[in-house]
């Protein structure tokens, strides 16, 4: 009898561990197929978003050339407007901080703020200074351009004077060209990687261990939400984090000021769209983290509510707080800071859900170091 039981046990065990007689993946499997998700995200979301950004970036680049060729009130206005459009479009790709973007650490060169005025001045004086070391992060990218076209003087006349009558005018124009050339080169590398070798690597590394595409993607994007949307745009300027002292000068687009809310809104929406797998061009929802979590059946065992519904609801709550803010977040910190802190608090709730509920349901380990808040 015992022998029989043992035999059956062993056979059942062997049977279920090596059986390949099951039918091919059924439709229900497709949602759980990470290669499908990765392919769709790369082709429908990530690469088209970079293309869209590239268009805006090239336009800005052209306008900057017009400005440096002939700095006047009209070219400045046009450059500024193109800079705004490109900065907004950047918010839709900054979250892809994995793979090529992580390799080039493109965010650090594109959007570390507040800009260092002293560092920029030093770089203008010394055109051979390095723009590759960490100390140079706040002297380049969008925040540096913000300072150069919005912050050098109190009004357009005095800003234009820096580029026309100032003794270092030529050097300042040259620095604008240098900053844009550097951005152009980094962006070119990231896009060509995505369109080349990396696309296959991304789709084929289907595991969930450290270094797999899904793990890198989840880690990179959750980190983005936590540190660069929640903390960078709200937690740090409002003083909701660390020692509690507000720092309005740390808002994004500090010199332009009136676009800081638009940037934050765009970044937040980009994250929500990415989570829902929305096509960058058509806006159609497709395979993505939401579908994957739904296919896994991730739901609260108490209420039966889908986890993705809860997460999307929390995104909406946070977005609603963000939507009622005034366009100038610098002013909001100074006069209406509680609303900034409230936005931070709602985003914080979303962070927990992403970091705990989502990663736990997916069996992914958060591996990044959280070094914000000080």
């Amino acid at each position, binding site marked *: 009898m015992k022998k029989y039981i*043992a035999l059956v*046990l062993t056979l059942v065990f062997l049977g279920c561990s*090596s059986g390949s007689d099951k039918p091919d993946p059924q439709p229900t499997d497709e949602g759980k197929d990470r290669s499908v998700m990765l392919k769709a995200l790369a082709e429908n979301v990530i690469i088209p978003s970079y293309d869209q950004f590239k268009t805006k970036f090239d336009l800005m680049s052209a306008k900057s050339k017009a400005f440096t060729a002939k700095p006047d009130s009209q070219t400045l206005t046009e450059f500024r407007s193109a800079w705004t459009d490109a900065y907004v479009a950047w918010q839709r790709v900054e979250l892809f901080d994995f793979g090529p973007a992580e390799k080039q650490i493109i965010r650090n060169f594109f959007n570390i703020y507040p800009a260092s005025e002293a560092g920029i001045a030093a770089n203008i004086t010394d055109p051979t200074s390095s723009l590759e070391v960490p100390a140079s992060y706040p002297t380049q990218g969008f925040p540096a351009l913000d300072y150069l076209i919005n912050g050098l003087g109190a009004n357009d006349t005095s800003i234009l004077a820096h580029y026309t009558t100032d003794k270092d005018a030529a050097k300042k124009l040259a620095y604008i060209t240098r900053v844009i050339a550097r951005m152009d080169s980094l962006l070119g590398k990231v896009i060509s990687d995505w369109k080349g070798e990396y696309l296959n690597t991304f789709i084929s590394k289907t595991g969930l261990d450290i270094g797999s595409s899904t793990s890198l993607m989840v880690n990179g994007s959750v980190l983005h939400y936590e540190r660069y949307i929640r903390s960078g745009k709200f937690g740090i300027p409002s003083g909701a984090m660390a*020692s509690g002292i507000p720092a309005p000068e740390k808002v994004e687009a500090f010199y332009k000021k009136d676009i800081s809310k638009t940037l934050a809104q765009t970044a937040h929406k980009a994250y929500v769209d990415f989570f829902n797998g929305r096509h960058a061009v058509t806006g159609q929802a497709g395979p993505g983290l939401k579908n994957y979590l739904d296919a896994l059946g991730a739901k609260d*065992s*108490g209420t039966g509510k889908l986890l993705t519904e809860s997460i999307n609801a929390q995104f909406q709550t946070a977005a609603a707080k963000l939507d009622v803010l005034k366009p100038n977040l610098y002013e909001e910190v100074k006069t209406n800071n509680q609303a900034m802190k409230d936005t931070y608090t709602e985003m914080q709730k979303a962070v927990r859900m992403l970091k705990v509920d989502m990663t736990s349901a997916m069996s992914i380990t958060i591996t990044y*170091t959280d070094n914000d*808040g*000080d």
Partner: protein
Amino acid sequence: MRAYLQKYTSAAPLAVFRAIFGLMLAISTGRFVALGWVKELYINPRFFFPFYGFEFVRPLGEWTYLLFAICGISALLVAIGWHYRMASVALFLSFTYIEFIDKSTYLNHYYFVSLLCFMLLFLPANTLFSIDSRQNQALRAGQIPAWCLDSIRLIVCMLYFYAGIAKLNSDWLLEALPMKIWLPAKNDTLLIGTLFNHLETAYIFSWIGCIYDLSVGFLLWNGRTRPFAYASVVVFHLLTSLLFPIGMFPYIMIVTALVFFPAEFHQKIIDRAGRLLALPAETIKPIAPYRFPAWLQPIVYAVFALFFVFQITFPFRYLLYSDELFWTEEGYRFSWRVMLMEKAGYTQFTVTDATGRRQVVNNNDFLTHLQEKMMSTQPDMILQYAHMLRDHYAARGFTRPHVYVDSYVALNGRTGKPLIAPDVDLAQQTDSFRHKSWITPFDNEIKGL
């Protein structure tokens, strides 16, 4: 009982076990050092989580390497049976010391290894097939008391059986949790991957895993079922090592289960190895029976009796606590609860004081990833960390700091919720074996043992 204690059996299985076990530990230790884990786990961290009552176990800094050297060398000495008694003491102490430095590295299999080392301290595992027996004629023995070997078998059986009992709960059996979560993560495994997408597979794995754990010890003990049982041990552990990151544990279990095989099997191994190493016949096949020194015998009996009473009862201490074990983890460790739940957490600490100072803590300033991950789901570690923060900020100008934690923990797919009451000043709580009243009630039920 008296008759049983006087029963003798071949010394070969225990000797082979000693040799393989020592060798495996030496390899494990070498691997641990080679992977850079000594630095990562025991030297780099700023703060450590000692076990309650074992706070005297402190990290040793660079000297930790010496500790590992002692552990590795004594494991080798145990394997070859040279100065066996001293080596086994050194092995037990060094291994256990390492294990007790930091709670975040706790693994059931380290505990298991510690227990085996402890037992080997007393057992006559060097009476043959050892350098000691080659050098010391008086030591040679081919027969040892049967309980010596049986006690090793018993602890192996207990490990499996208790691991099986721990699975007798509604999450594991009725919800297929956490298998339901873990298996789809491996759905890209070659050939068998698509199976893991099916809910049925998660149920089959859960049930088979449970039945396997409950029965395999007995099936190994029984001669007729042994070959099948051993085959299932090999398949089971290889499969788990394929699916889950559990290091050396599967291999240690695969070789440890050899102790159930009959004496002839082990004698054959010794004969063959003996020929290969050109060992003299008298250390391969001694005849004399081993006798414990008269003064030692009652002590050894008492130690083993206490040891097993402890082993049988200690895993059930969780019954003394009211709330859900998986949630509070009061009585969770040292109870053979292996790969039993999916738990993840997030904690944010705030330190304040009466003068209005306030600091939101960045955990990565103090803890490693592993430590933060472990701390975030385990109340006793949250308290230890809170005390560390209290002392840290008190030394930096805070007057009698208060420490609060905003915690968020998800257990087996349930949406996360606070694990610790957010308004309790952890700086003023103390650790003890009593229930921690500041743990938020689970208000959900996992039925079963």
